[in-house]
């Protein structure tokens, strides 16, 4: 994983890859908010949202297989959705021999549909935007500089720190470390403590290196440029379409 890309990024030159990051970020967040605000009984609306996400993914030339493979991130969250129909109250129906709560089934469907659409939208955004651009976008969206600066350092040193943790795990294992119970966790915890000290000391060295290269306490801007008006219009067309669907869904609520 190189420093400027991340696990979900897919290299490309599509219109979506070239779009201004702040537009993509704003459009994604607004789209997800519209999806979350849609009543779950309006089944057709979620179909429309899925078509919209698929169309944007096609515009970005992302293969459906890549999208599907990355959607498995969501699997752990579905445990809660599975649990709801079993413990839910109210009216019950029999589904293949199991007595399930109707209210619980609706809740589970809502979580499943909205959660999947949310993850899919986030994946399309992340797949077409490298890390520096995401940081530019956040800065253009007026996030405080302290936060974008911390995030910038964090993503730059993430691989270093994660790899350091992995090397320590390998070193423990090669010395026969195979703990099975919580009271055997001391070695893992000592590694985490060492990892903190090494991270902190690396932070001190990075700071000194920056000072010796003329750092005066203010970071240069990430160099983000304003997006053109038509760029905003194209990006916001997606949440606007979704909002139209959402409004119709409320209108025709059964």
């Amino acid at each position, binding site marked *: 994983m190189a420093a400027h890309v991340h696990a*979900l990024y897919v290299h490309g030159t599509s219109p979506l890859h070239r779009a201004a990051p702040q537009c993509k970020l704003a459009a994604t*967040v607004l789209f*997800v908010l519209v999806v*979350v605000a849609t009543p*779950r009984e309006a089944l057709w609306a979620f179909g429309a949202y899925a078509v919209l996400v698929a169309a944007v993914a096609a515009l970005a030339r992302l293969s459906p297989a890549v999208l599907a493979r990355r959607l498995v*991130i*969501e699997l752990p969250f579905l445990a*809660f959705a599975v*649990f709801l*129909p079993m*413990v*839910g109250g109210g009216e019950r129906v029999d589904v293949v021999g199991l007595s399930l*709560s109707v209210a619980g*089934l*609706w*809740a589970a469907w809502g*979580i*499943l*549909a909205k959660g999947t*659409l*949310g*993850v899919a939208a*986030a*994946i399309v955004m*992340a797949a077409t935007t490298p890390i520096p651009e995401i940081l530019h976008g956040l800065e253009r969206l007026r996030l*405080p500089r*302290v*936060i974008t*600066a*911390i*995030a910038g*350092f*964090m*993503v*730059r*040193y*993430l691989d270093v*720190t*994660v790899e350091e*943790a992995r090397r320590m795990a390998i070193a423990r294992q090669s010395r026969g470390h195979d*703990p*099975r*119970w*919580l*009271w*055997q*966790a001391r070695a*893992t*915890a*000592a590694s*985490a*403590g060492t*990892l*903190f*000290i090494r991270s*902190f000391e690396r*932070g001190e060295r*990075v*700071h000194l290196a920056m000072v010796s290269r003329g750092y005066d306490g203010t*970071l240069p801007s990430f160099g983000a440029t304003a997006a053109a008006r038509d760029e905003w219009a194209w990006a916001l067309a997606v949440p606007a379409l979704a909002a139209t669907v959402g409004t119709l869904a409320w209108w025709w609520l059964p």
Partner: protein
Amino acid sequence: MHIPDGFIDAPTSLAAGAVAVTGLAVCVHKTADSLEERDIPLAGLTAAFVFAVQMLNFPVASGTSGHLLGGVLAAVLVGPYLGTLCVSVVLLVQALLFADGGLSALGLNVVNMALVTSFGGYALFLLVRRLLPRTRASVVVASGVAAGLGVVLASLAFTVEYALGGAGGASVSTVASAMVGVHVLIGIGEGTITALVVSAVLATRPDLVHGAAHLLPHRRLVVGPRVAPEGVA
């Protein structure tokens, strides 16, 4: 613990977003006062550490494993304000780069895992530390107890959010007992590991533990001939 989209309704998510923005604004203000921008590389590395520590698996029972959430650990190591900022940055990056936790639920996740865990946990840490003698062992015990209870606090915050705008289906009391029950168990692991990590850092660099700053002797820098060792011209 990362809430996905669609779990909690839009009004509650937006309200939590407003609470998160307010809380983070306070943290930004407080850290700007005490740290200035020179410590931004340190904060970034601390955030990278919190991220890495969440990927570090520790054994729980009979070969199953869990991972640290790290909210209270970060607060005890670098202080509650900077710790909250670091955990929030981790959550932001996880949502944007890894699609981990819903974008509409980012406010909820920041409230639960950064604000409630770090501040609630740090308040508990100070309370327990005060009840115990002024020793390193007390700092270790206090951070463990606070980290364990901090996880339970986060699950209570989730239950409140579920009661306000949950997807429904199960009753609030069912969700509350399931969430709190599971998180008491997670809290035992979180508390044990946090205490062990804090004790490991205290053993080598006690000056890096914010929660143990009161134990360090106050040293003054003296520059002059009196500190020159014997026999050195």
